[in-house]
């Protein structure tokens, strides 16, 4: 399945948010995820299904402002 992850096209096997984070080696307590502009709460990562063409944003706290 092809997704756009943080603006980059990625071909992945994962079909859920949690599996995607594992497949792409995202770890940490301070990640937040949105799929097609909808926030996916951490408690829903395991159930949140991904579909072909989804746009996934994975953000983290950073310096700024």
């Amino acid at each position, binding site marked *: 399945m092809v997704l756009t992850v943080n603006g980059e096209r990625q071909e992945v096997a994962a079909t859920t948010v949690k599996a995607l984070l594992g497949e792409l080696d995202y770890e940490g307590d301070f990640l937040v995820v949105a799929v097609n502009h909808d926030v996916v709460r951490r408690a829903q990562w395991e159930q949140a299904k991904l579909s072909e063409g989804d746009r996934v944003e994975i953000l983290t706290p950073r*310096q700024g402002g």
Partner: protein
Amino acid sequence: MQLYGQTIQSRLLIGTALYPSPAVMEQALQASGAEIVTVSLRREAAGAKAGDAFWRIVSGMGAKILPNTAGCRTVRDAVTTAQMARELFGTPWIKLEVIGDDETLQPDVVGLVEAAAILARDGFQVFPYCTEDLTVVGRLVDAGCEVVMPWASPIGSAKGIINPYGLRTLRARFPDVTLIVDAGLGALRTRPRRWRWATTPCS
């Protein structure tokens, strides 16, 4: 000063950008006495865990976090980033930035008003970064903003307050709104008189 019903003793908000090292940032945050620290959300690189180290420093300060939507150029991106910030930081506060010009980072005030209205309806307590335009600030207040953050001058320009009349007019016309003068103030040692002026209008 009052920020959405919360009393804050320090009138200084401190940012987290452009420090030479995490250690210097941590020392500056502690030395400032500021009770509010602004923090961005940015895309994380796979395997980087870059946000964890930064966040452990900031969260360890015990300060209130004011997340921002820095870097957003559309209403939709700003709203999504605000919602992601609320999920991550657990606060309804959001410093709303919608950038309209890449060179000066001037706010897109049309998009800003639209995004502020959306977020206020969604329960956010919005701190919009705006120009000193009277009408724009009026629209932001109408949208539900109890705090506005008019610029002194463009971000990073260090030009100080380019329109004192405009800021004084905002203070006079919106006496119940907390004004936080943001951006372009320059270094304290080079503009002490302007800095003092800038801090006094905050309510």
